[in-house]
């Protein structure tokens, strides 16, 4: 279960960022921000990437003692960053991929909304609900 989920726009500003234990929110924001460097590194390393699900999923960006950070990038260079608690029984890679896939689907649903301007903060309730379902439950 994720601890923090963020959607970063192409220009590297956050469209949506949500973390579950809210007192450490700032720390997670910082983590996500620093992870963007790693994302960019991986993107540039890919070169002319084939359109493939595997290409979109960047995998573990970097682990720290407390948590792991996973990344995912879409074809339009919108990045999803997920911070997962390390103490959590190690989530399998497939689970992370499926979570990213769900995120991607919800994101495309938001894009379909004609009232949404790309580049705005995401305020969709459906997206919130989906993210909540993926987040860790706080006691």
């Amino acid at each position, binding site marked *: 279960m994720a601890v923090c989920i963020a959607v970063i726009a192409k220009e590297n500003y956050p469209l949506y960022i949500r973390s579950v234990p809210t*007192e450490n929110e700032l720390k997670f924001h910082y983590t996500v921000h620093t992870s963007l460097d790693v994302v960019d590194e991986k993107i540039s390393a890919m070169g002319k990437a084939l359109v493939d699900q595997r290409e979109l999923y960047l995998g573990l960006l970097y682990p720290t003692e407390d948590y792991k950070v996973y990344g995912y990038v879409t074809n339009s260079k919108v990045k999803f960053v997920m911070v997962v608690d390390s103490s959590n029984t190690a989530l399998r890679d497939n689970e992370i991929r499926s979570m990213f896939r769900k995120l991607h689907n919800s994101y*495309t*649903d938001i*894009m*379909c*909304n*004609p*009232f*949404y301007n790309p580049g705005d903060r995401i*305020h*969709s*309730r*459906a997206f919130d609900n989906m993210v909540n379902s993926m987040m860790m439950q706080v006691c």
Partner: protein
Amino acid sequence: MSVAPYEVRHPTHQQDGSSSGNYGAKPALACSTLNRSLSAEREQQDSSAHYSDDPWRITEEQRDYYVNQFRSLQPDLNSFISGSMAKNFFTKSKLPIPELSHIWELSDVDCDGALTLPEFCAAFHLVVARKNGYQLPETLPETLLPEYLQAASLKPMRDCALFDSYSESLPGGQQTRDFSRTEKKSAEEVPDNSALLQDGKKDDKQALKVSTALKTIPKEFQHLTVKTAAQESNALKARPRSRSYSSTSIEDAMKKGEEPPTPPPRPQKSHSRASSLDLNKIFQQNTQAVRSGWLPPPPPALPPRPSVSQTEQPSEVELHPQMNRPPSQAEENSSAKKEVVLSQPPSKPTRRKLRTETQGLETPELSPTINVTSSLPAVKPHLPVQKQSSKQKRAIQTAIRKNKETNAVLARLNSELQQQLKEVHKERIALETQLEQLRPVTVL
């Protein structure tokens, strides 16, 4: 086939051929019928047990209206309305963009960025509900799901066929019957609208009406918020009146606070004392007429006297039409007028009404005197004038006394409330400090 019932149901769509691209005006026109039908349906829903009290259920009239609106955007009913077209259309409703975004999320079930007919109906219904003060639900209600609406959509097509057969024979009569059928189930005021609308329908200058009555496209949804302002101008235009009636009935039926409708500038400022209200109106009309006639003739030599003479005569004039009314109120108005005459004429109506409140108590004292004066209209005006001047002074003094008393009472009340406010403030501060203490101390 699709066009004929179209014309039968809504007169506005007779202009389909003329301005097919101008779908903005048509929703504007049809929205009046929508409101009327909506009001009919709302009250029908509220009253009848057939429909549960479910604002999320689309009625037949609403469905037809939505279908027509869909047609105006997309002639093929089985095809989609693209996102941008829908966006333009719904933006006209003047709802804030986040709410429209949420409505879209709810109604676009397959999330394809386009609206099918049932999706469009659901979205439109949500827009209308929101305009009428209903909060948007978190999830799409069952009655607005596309599958549900698909199943229900078969029924109106049958009705269209029925009307199709009628339309050829009696277009006008059918229209009246159609609307009378819907209005029978609704409140009384709605048939007035239908009558008015039918007059409007039969009027050949519908295009003119479109342009005049609905100058801007956003008005199609603004009328939902128009309340009695248009009611007051009902003599001027039938169309705004129908809109306003439908909107008021909607609001009556829904009984929810709306986005602030523009409150009409009501001419009456007095508090609602039922009997005096009517009197005020009548007096206002009378005094205005009388004043204009009276003020020039009397010589301005002695201001109190001519004023009193004027008031005496208007008072008798007004007492006649109101013989059945309690004399005290007549007196209160006449005494009020004495004060008012000394002030400027244009502000008379309001001033007089305000004073009627304050001088209400002094009326019993004046009533015997004024009765005397009114009973002697032909007698020389000077005798009652002198009496009235002294009475007038007494009246003023009693009014002052009463005002002082009320002032004292209000001041006492004010001090008490201030005391309460202080206490509540103290409590609040205490609670806030407690909260701060209880909050977990964050260790860095």
